[in-house]
Every structure is written in structure tokens, then in C-alpha cells.
């Protein structure tokens, strides 16, 4: 018998040391620096896909698809502000900084959102004319870095959003590497051109809930109580953070789960810190309910919202509205297959391109390179964003009508079941085919 006939083991790849892990070890060994990237968590975590709507039945009758009204409007900031934000649809555009995004991309977001009857949000880096000029309702972020922060812009805003945390990096600050610090970005941020800029992770002039209350008082005094003040928190401790934000006087709580995108941060942060969006909603709603504030202080959920089904599910769990970052970028052209050959040259591929911090985005969105920026036509891209927002709204309405609701806000947890034990536990809705979820009393 020759040696060739001896049965051999087949090569087995380790489930622990995967090709991806090994590649990262080699990269780290070669460079001495952690991996920085944009986007949100790429790992699979329990999400809205793990929930289903039940639809109508004998006990619940549906509404007629095209004839019976299903309202989608929402008021944000009804607690204290003289002028709450009134949106036609409950899907807002999340804060994305000028600097991370190009001017034309910001303009496109403003145009699309305004056409769809919703708001946009500034970001780390201040307010640009592109955005203010093209957004009928603009939320002004108040961030730890305070780049470009000035009272004139504050007074021009339709709402203020105090950023405490971001789902992609709870406890981390912004990052904008030298390649993207163009003359204009440098000037807006009062920084030298071309430096690697790390924004602070904590506010410079307050720490903790007692200070936050005084900070909210100050902002409200400066704006004469006219506009709502939101507090944006990451999905870290949603029950306590929501409670403290409400106690500090927030008009709106924006809660961003771990799948939420970022312009740039350490991959280890994106993938290993924070809780999935699905796990954050019920504790936040519980906090609102415990304080008698549900629907009085509005809850905006973000982090991985992609479809009208996601919108409807977030709202059924108790959110008043949702916010989108990554999906809006895709709608205006991010990771479009038409740039595949260019993604390949950058060592990536359509759908996976996330080196947004390098400023070489073939789609012209996450760049300050004048040539690449031209690839975004703000009018056309704005129209696509409008279309996408409309589609999501129609989808959410379709579901709400099927569940017998004449307003998206009337969706409720009882409309849902879960496909997995994990999702059932996190969303506190019954596992499909049962009337039970983990943690429910009496079992």
C-alpha cells in the first residue's frame, strides 16, 4: 500500500483564530496602531429582523390600504419648548459632521430631508451654510469638542442636541484624521491644517447629571426657551441614562444603539462597546413610563434603521421617531456598486468600504477632496434621499394599517412577536408561538 492511500485529516480553520482575526494581528504587528474605520458594528447582533408583526385577525381589524388614513406626523420637544419640531414623518437625519462628510453631501441631506418633511442634524464641526440653507428644520449638535460652536448658529437652529454619547463609541470622542482637515475644515474647527484631530470624549464644562441640568438651563436661557433641547445618549445604560436625561430637563432623548455608524473610530470600540439597539429601547421606554413621561419627552431611536419595517418595530416598542445615518448615506450614493473598480483599488469592495477617515471615498461623500466631492450632485442625491424616506414611511404605514392603526404612534408591543429567545428577552415581546418571553414574571 502506498503512502498516498493513508487517510489524512483535512485542514481545519480555527473558529477562534479566523482569517479576519489573523489578518488583523498581522496588520497590527506591521503598523503598531489600532484599526480605525467608519460605519457601525458589522458583527451580527439581535436586531429588528428578529421581530415580526402579527397583523390583523378576528380580534383586530385592519385599515384599508389606500383609503383609510394612517398618520405619520410627530412633534418633538413638546415638554418645554415654545416651538417644538413638527415633522411629517418620524424618520430624521442623524448628526453627521461637516468634515466627516463633504459640503455637497450635507447639502443633499438637507434637500432630501426637507422635501420629505423631516429634520437634519449638524455634527462635530459646526453648522455649514450648505446645510442651514437647505434644511427647513435643523438640529444643532452641542458636542464636547465645541468646534465651530457659536451663539449665532445656536440661535439659527430649530433644536439643540447635547451629545453625551454615540452608539458606535459610548465613551469615545470624535476623530478626524489629517487627510480630511482641509483649509475650510481647519478654519471651522480653529485647528492647524493636516493634523490628526481627536475630539474630547467629555464635555469641557460639565460632568454628571446635576451639571447637565444647569447646562440645559443655560442653553434654554440663551435661546429664550424657544427651541427643544435633545440629549443624545449611546446605548450603554439606557434605563439610567434616559432617567437622568429626563430629570436634567431634556425635551427629547435620542438613543443610539451599538450598530449606529460613526465617521471614524477604533474598530475595537465599534465592535465591543455598547448594547444592540434592540436591547436599548424597552429599558428607555420603561424609564419614561416610570417617570410618567412617555410621549411627553419624546424618544428617538437610531442605530441600524434601514427599512420601514425597522421604523415600525422601533415605534411599536415605544419610540416616537427614529433617526438614520448610514442608510441616508447609502441613499445618496455611499458604497454604490458603480464605484466597484475604485473600491478594489483601495483594497475594499462595494458594501464593505469603510475607510471613511482616509478621505478617498470614491462616492465623494466622506471626503474633502474637491475632485471626489464633485461626484455628489446635491439635487439628484437629495431627490434619492427624499424617495427613500417616502418609501420607508409607506412601508411603515402599510404595516401599521395591517395592524389596524391609524397613526404610526399607535403601534404597540402587542403587535409583535420574536423569532429568537434573545430578541424576545431584549424586546420583551413573546417568542413566536408562545405567550412567553425570558424574564416575564409568572414562569
Amino acid at each position: 500500500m502506498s503512502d498516498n492511500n493513508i487517510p489524512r485529516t483535512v485542514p481545519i480553520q480555527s473558529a477562534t483564530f479566523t482569517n479576519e482575526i489573523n489578518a488583523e494581528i498581522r496588520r497590527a504587528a506591521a503598523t503598531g496602531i489600532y484599526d480605525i474605520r467608519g460605519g457601525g458594528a458589522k458583527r451580527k447582533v439581535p436586531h429588528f429582523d428578529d421581530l415580526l408583526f402579527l397583523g390583523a385577525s378576528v380580534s383586530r381589524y385592519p385599515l384599508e390600504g389606500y383609503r383609510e388614513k394612517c398618520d405619520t406626523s410627530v412633534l418633538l420637544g413638546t415638554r418645554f419648548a415654545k416651538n417644538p419640531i413638527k415633522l411629517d414623518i418620524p424618520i430624521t437625519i442623524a448628526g453627521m459632521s461637516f468634515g466627516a462628510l463633504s459640503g455637497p453631501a450635507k447639502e443633499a441631506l438637507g434637500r432630501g430631508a426637507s422635501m420629505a418633511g423631516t429634520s437634519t442634524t449638524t455634527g462635530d464641526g459646526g453648522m455649514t451654510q450648505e446645510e442651514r440653507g437647505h434644511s427647513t428644520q435643523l438640529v444643532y449638535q452641542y458636542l464636547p469638542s465645541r468646534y465651530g460652536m457659536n451663539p449665532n448658529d445656536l440661535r439659527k437652529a430649530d433644536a439643540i442636541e447635547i451629545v453625551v454619547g454615540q452608539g458606535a463609541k459610548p465613551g469615545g470622542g470624535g476623530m478626524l484624521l489629517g487627510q480630511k482637515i482641509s483649509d475650510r475644515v481647519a478654519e471651522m474647527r480653529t485647528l492647524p491644517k493636516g493634523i490628526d484631530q481627536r475630539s474630547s470624549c467629555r464635555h469641557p464644562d460639565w460632568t454628571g447629571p446635576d451639571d447637565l441640568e444647569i447646562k440645559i438651563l443655560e442653553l434654554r436661557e440663551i435661546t429664550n426657551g424657544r427651541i427643544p433641547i435633545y440629549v443624545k445618549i449611546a446605548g450603554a445604560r439606557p434605563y439610567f441614562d434616559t432617567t437622568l436625561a429626563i430629570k436634567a430637563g431634556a425635551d427629547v432623548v435620542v438613543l443610539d444603539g451599538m450598530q449606529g455608524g460613526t465617521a471614524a473610530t477604533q474598530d475595537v470600540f465599534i465592535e465591543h462597546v455598547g448594547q444592540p439597539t434592540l436591547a436599548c429601547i424597552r429599558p428607555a421606554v420603561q424609564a419614561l413610563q416610570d417617570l410618567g413621561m412617555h410621549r411627553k419627552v419624546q424618544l428617538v431611536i437610531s442605530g441600524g434603521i434601514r427599512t420601514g419595517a425597522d421604523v415600525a418595530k422601533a415605534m411599536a416598542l415605544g419610540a416616537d421617531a427614529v433617526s438614520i445615518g448610514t442608510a441616508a448615506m447609502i441613499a445618496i450614493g455611499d458604497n454604490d456598486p458603480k464605484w466597484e473598480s475604485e473600491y478594489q483599488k483601495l483594497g475594499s469592495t462595494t458594501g464593505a468600504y469603510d475607510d471613511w477617515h482616509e478621505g478617498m471615498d470614491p462616492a465623494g461623500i466622506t471626503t474633502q477632496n474637491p475632485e471626489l466631492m464633485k461626484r455628489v450632485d446635491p439635487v439628484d442625491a437629495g431627490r434619492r434621499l427624499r424617495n427613500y424616506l417616502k418609501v420607508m414611511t409607506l412601508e411603515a404605514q402599510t404595516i401599521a394599517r395591517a395592524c389596524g392603526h391609524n397613526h404610526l404612534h399607535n403601534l404597540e408591543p402587542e403587535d409583535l412577536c420574536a423569532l429568537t429567545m434573545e430578541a424576545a428577552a431584549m424586546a420583551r415581546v413573546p417568542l413566536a408561538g408562545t405567550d412567553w418571553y425570558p424574564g416575564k414574571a409568572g414562569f
Partner: protein
Amino acid sequence: MQTYDLEANGLRGLNETLHAQSGATNQTAWEVVNPKGSHAIAVGLDAPIEVTVKGSTGYYCAGMNQQATIRVEGSAGPGAAENMMSGTVIIDGDASQYAGATGHGGLLVIKGNASSRCGISMKGIDIVVHGNIGHMSAFMAQAGNLVVCGDAGDALGDSLYEARLFVRGSVKSLGADCIEKELRPEHIEILKDLLGRAGADAKPEEFKRYGSARQLYNFDVDNAAAY
């Protein structure tokens, strides 16, 4: 002179009244009595008026000031003149933490001492402290001048960008990437001007200048411990 009794009439009325003043007003002098440590006194002003607060204030007095001259005849709580854009703020007593934080312009004068994190993330404001300043002052300071006639605490100018720091007395320790630099004639001029405007009795030549070594501007693995 208009007098506003804060205790009797409340904060909202004060700020609303002061916001209603424009450049054309002839009511240019205001006096706030009974401040009793209230927060957010005279915030968001945007007119060339003069406001004198007769006593000590809480958090964020004169926050985001534009054009106005605001004087506190007492001490100020945390975040005095935070994010000031222009105008002048004078604290007769001491200032708590974060005085002048993220200020973009104008002049902040502290006649007593300032606590920790004075001038944190400052972006163009000028700050003159007659006394001493606490630890972590001028942390991540981006632009402007911080002048300290007394001593500075630990970690002065940590992760400093382009702000200039001038200290007459001792510096307990310098923060990461902050170094002593040569005091050149143009700096003497800056000091002369600021000390004069701040009414500080000190000679420019007695100060040492500190600034960024600019070693942390672009990430280098060999500096990792400093980040």
C-alpha cells in the same frame, strides 16, 4: 443705570431683558442685585452694554457672551464666560473650574485665582488671571492667550494645540506635548497689551511662555504613551 433684582424678578426676566437690548439701546448700564449664586446669569448677550453683578454667581455666568462687558463683583462658579465670542468679562473674586472654556474671543479677566481646567479647549479667547490657576488648565487649548500672573498647577497645557500660555510664577508640571518656548518681542507686545487691558500690575519680561511641541499632531506609535 437700570437695576434688576434677580431674587425678586427671576432669571428668565433678566436674560430676556438683556437679550432685548440692541446696539442702538441707550440703556447701556445694568446692575444685577441679589445674584446669590444663581446659574446662567447674563448668558447669550449680544449688545455693547455693561452689566455689573453685585455679588457671586453660580455656573456659566456670562456664557457665550458677545459684545457686552460683564463684571462680577464677587466670585464666579464653574464655566464663567464659557464659549465667549467677544466683549469683556471681569471677575473680581475667584473663578471655579472651566473658566473661559472653549471661548472663541473677547477678554476674560479673573482678579483672584482660577480653579482647574481654566481655558480648557479655548479657541481664541484671551484670559488674564491675576492669581494662580489650578491643574489641567488650557487642556487641548486651540488658540488664544492665557496669561497667569501667579502660579500654575499640574499638567499645564496638556495636549495643547496653538494657544499661547504665559506664566509669571511657577508651573507645577507641564502636560503632554507642552514645552517652554522663547519669549520673543512679539510676545512681549501681546503681554503688554493684555496686562494693560486687564489692569494687572506685572512686567511682561517676568513671564515665561509655554506652547505646543506639536509632537502629538499626527499619530506616531512611539508616542503612544502620551495619548
